[in-house]
């Protein structure tokens, strides 16, 4: 029987196998940020341990950073303490830190790939649930807690059990205005927010093959929102082309050896997955979340569902709670939802392709009166690239705010926050209660849909917008 890509990577990283207790798998790269690491460094200090492989550990500050300016004195005292502490810890333990003033600074899941730190076949971990992003390169990448961060720092391994495997095949051709974000939101809506708990998902099929690396990262990024341990996509020529020449990518004869190895990672034809799901691309329409969980999602041309329409009593209660929090009525058209704020950015949709797509929609138009539109590039590199292409000018001419890189209003740990009752069309990954600011209401959408919402001031069907019927 053949092996899945997950099994191949697992087998190649098994340091110690013991089915009765725990197996140890080797971690090739650990990415670190300021929020989930201070207690791990402190743990090492208390136990007198060192970081086993400093050259395999990379740090950045992203969750807390101000985006209006790079002046740290503008951040709150507690935020600043955490960022100062990260720098101090990295200096003390010998870790490369892409701090706020580093030109390659950015959101951890954006800079890993763009610096070539992320590579196929690797096991990559980070104290952050969106680590599955790196799975787009054919890596086994997943989020861990702070105790595990400390464990990896000290041992370069993790105690793990094997996960079950799920293959999601998406075949056909995506319709106009349907993006990778819509694909992953559709999947979460279909299988539920716990639909993949205990699984690592492999995404495959025509749609994934045709997708850019940026799009693949968007899909893998939100695997956790379906409960999955990780999400991954087989590496192909597109993956290799993306990586070649990047700062930390293999060079010379190493590159040749690496590519030869990477080509062996693809799941074997006769590999057996624990679960297989088939999706037709034609069934996916632009998606919008209406509730307070990413699984509470529907197509833009639908209406807000009636809680009574859910068979499961728990889902019924959850829907009623969500509608109360979101201040929405059953039966209301999704496109009648008015918004106050637009947030374009995050590790889900803060890459150059996302900004290009949003700028295409917004070009030559104006942000609707009373709407605040924040454009937050995922990294310094994304920002500079966008500025070289003149995207910043397009956004600013339309009335958007062009910010510095950071997590910003995805989780609102810095001062980019919704005020109570404000409603936001966001390209980020979570619509939880209070996620973008206490009392704030979030509708998750694609960058194109967020840009269209900025122009019209309400949730807008990008397909009609593109046909000139709206905006």
């Amino acid at each position, binding site marked *: 029987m053949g092996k899945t890509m997950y099994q191949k990577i697992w087998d190649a990283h098994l*340091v110690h196998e013991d089915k009765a207790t725990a197996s140890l798998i080797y971690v090739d790269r650990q990415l670190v940020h300021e929020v989930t690491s201070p*207690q791990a460094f402190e743990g090492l200090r208390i136990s007198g341990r060192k970081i086993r492989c400093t050259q395999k550990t990379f740090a950045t500050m992203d969750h807390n950073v101000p985006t209006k300016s790079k002046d740290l004195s503008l951040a709150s005292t507690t935020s600043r303490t955490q960022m100062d502490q990260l720098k101090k810890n990295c200096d003390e333990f010998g870790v490369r830190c892409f701090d706020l003033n580093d030109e390659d600074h950015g959101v951890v899941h954006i800079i890993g790939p763009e610096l070539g730190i992320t590579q196929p076949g690797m096991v990559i971990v980070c104290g952050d649930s969106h680590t599955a992003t790196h799975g787009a390169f054919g890596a086994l990448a997943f989020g861990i807690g*702070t105790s595990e961060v400390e464990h990896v720092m000290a041992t*370069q391994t993790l105690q793990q059990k094997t996960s079950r495997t799920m293959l999601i095949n998406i075949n056909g051709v995506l319709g106009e205005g349907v993006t990778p974000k819509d694909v992953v939101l559709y999947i979460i809506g279909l299988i539920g927010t716990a639909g993949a708990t205990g699984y690592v998902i492999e995404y495959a099929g025509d749609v994934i093959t045709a997708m850019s690396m940026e799009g693949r990262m968007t899909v893998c990024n939100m695997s956790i929102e379906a409960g999955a341990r990780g999400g991954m996509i087989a590496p192909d020529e597109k993956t290799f082309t993306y990586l070649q020449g990047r700062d930390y990518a293999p060079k010379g004869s190493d590159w040749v050896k690496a590519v030869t190895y990477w080509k062996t990672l693809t799941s074997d034809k006769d590999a057996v997955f624990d679960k297989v799901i088939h999706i037709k691309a034609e069934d996916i329409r632009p998606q919008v979340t209406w509730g307070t969980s990413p699984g509470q999602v529907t197509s833009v041309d639908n209406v807000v569902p009636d809680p009574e329409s859910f068979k499961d009593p728990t*889902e019924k209660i959850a829907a009623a709670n969500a509608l109360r929090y979101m201040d929405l009525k059953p039966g209301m058209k999704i496109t009648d939802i008015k918004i106050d704020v637009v947030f374009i950015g995050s590790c889900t949709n803060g890459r150059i392709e996302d900004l290009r797509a949003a700028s295409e929609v917004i070009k030559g138009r104006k942000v609707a009166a009373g709407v605040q539109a924040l454009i937050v590039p995922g990294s310094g590199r994304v920002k500079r690239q966008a500025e070289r292409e003149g995207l910043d000018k397009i956004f600013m001419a339309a009335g958007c705010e062009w910010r510095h890189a950071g997590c910003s209003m995805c989780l*609102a740990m810095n001062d980019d926050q919704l005020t109570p009752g404000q409603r936001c069309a966001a390209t980020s990954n979570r619509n*939880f209660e209070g996620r973008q600011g*206490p009392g704030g209401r979030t509708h998750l959408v694609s960058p194109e849909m967020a840009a269209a919402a900025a122009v019209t001031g309400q949730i807008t069907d990008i397909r009609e917008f593109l046909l000139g019927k709206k905006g």
Partner: protein
Amino acid sequence: MEAFTTLTGIAAPLDRSNVDTDAIIPKQFLRKIERTGFGKHLFHEWRYLDYEGTKENPDFILNKEPFRKAKILLARDNFGCGSSREHAPWALADFGFRCIIAPSFADIFYNNCIKNGILLVKLKADDVDELFAVSAFGKSGLIAVDLDKQVVGAASKKFSFEIDPFNKECLLKGLDQVGWTLQFSSKIDDFEATMAKDKPWLK
């Protein structure tokens, strides 16, 4: 890590599914660089009426007697979903919770709790319903948990639960997991030596 053997206590029922770690501990409290002091911010947005957390919401379960002293939390499906923040179990433990019982838990949250000496018990939804009913009796509705025997007892009923044997051992002994792994240091050395030869680009 504090060992977990047996526990008898008041159980607070939290009747919501998909409780995410943002709800357990909102981001504005994640800026600390210590592991302690998160308990007062647990479930902040539901527990308090104001942003500063000075006015308690009288309707929230943990603001009602006797649940302020609850050691066991009863929850619904997919508890702990979302962000990987270990601040969530730190806040739960700091409040006084040593055990959470629900039909299902999110993956990263589950691991994080085990590392912090919090026992997570998965029971069938029907059994959790029964425990919710028992918890309504407050002080006279105590729930007892025995990890070694893998049994939850409430009223006259007993519910068995499954747990991974290694997680069980770690909890029972309060094991230092880094220390456990370091006994395999020479295997890690060997692995790295082979990797440096076969996959030099990963060094």
